[in-house]
């Protein structure tokens, strides 16, 4: 195991562990904060895979913005301090959920590892540099990029409408 693999493993374990805590924590805000840790360590994972810009975008957008949105929403829905008992579904449903989760993980992991698991790659930070990404986006991926702006516009307008909808009726 090389050094970079060690670092990768550390980030990956941290990401997965905090992800697991995020979906099992009994306290809502803790769950959201564990999500922060998970997303942050995933940024580390991306770094080790040579995707510098993606990692920073992950930090800037996910940690710096999306999670803040989640926290805002939690606070506006009066997230209580301490353990909430109504976060999780019934035992049976949880069991089914766990089975499904295990199944998905097993299926994905099994097929992926069986397919390409025994190869090694050499991540190259050059592919993750901003200029490389810029060339890709504005060279070959222009249309999806422009369509994204429409998506964002639609989402913005929809969110405005939805968040005002309650008061008008």
């Amino acid at each position, binding site marked *: 195991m090389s050094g970079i693999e060690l670092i990768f493993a550390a980030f990956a374990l941290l990401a997965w562990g905090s992800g697991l805590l995020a979906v099992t924590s009994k306290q809502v805000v803790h769950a959201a904060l564990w999500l922060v840790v998970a997303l942050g360590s995933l940024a580390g994972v991306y770094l080790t895979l040579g995707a510098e810009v993606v990692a920073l975008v992950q930090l*800037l957008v996910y940690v710096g913005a999306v999670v803040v949105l989640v926290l805002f929403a939690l606070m506006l829905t009066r997230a209580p301090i301490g353990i909430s008992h109504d976060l999780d579904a019934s035992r049976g449903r949880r069991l089914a959920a766990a089975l499904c989760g295990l199944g998905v993980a097993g299926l994905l992991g099994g097929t992926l590892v069986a397919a390409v698991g025994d190869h090694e790659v050499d991540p190259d930070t050059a592919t993750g540099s901003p200029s490389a*990404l*810029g060339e890709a*986006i504005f060279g070959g991926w*222009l249309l999806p990029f422009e369509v994204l702006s429409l998506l964002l516009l639609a989402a913005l307008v929809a969110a405005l409408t939805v968040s005002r909808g309650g008061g008008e009726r």
Partner: protein
Amino acid sequence: MVVGAVIAGGVLFFAAGVFANRILRPSVPTPEKMTTYESGVDPVGHGWSQSQVRYYLYAYLYVVFAVDAVYLFPWATVLRQFGWATLGEMGVFLGILAVGLVHAWRRGALRWS
């Protein structure tokens, strides 16, 4: 690498400070001390009396634009290379988003009231 080291160092510094604090400080908890501070009177009600959706709206507005700002950076590095065409492309992207901003403005979402 250095970044990781700095993070580690920072955490270390914080932990060391807290540890020193733990050693140095007195600890005499009393119920009065532990109550929530509310300008000297006993706490009334819950902290949730103020919850306004406008905070959320501002935050979401930011998210939308932060996402678009993210694209500005790769763009900035290839602008010289790609020239006017890229400028136009980003113009279209920003223009569409600007429609959203103007819409929000017209709807009064930017008014703090």
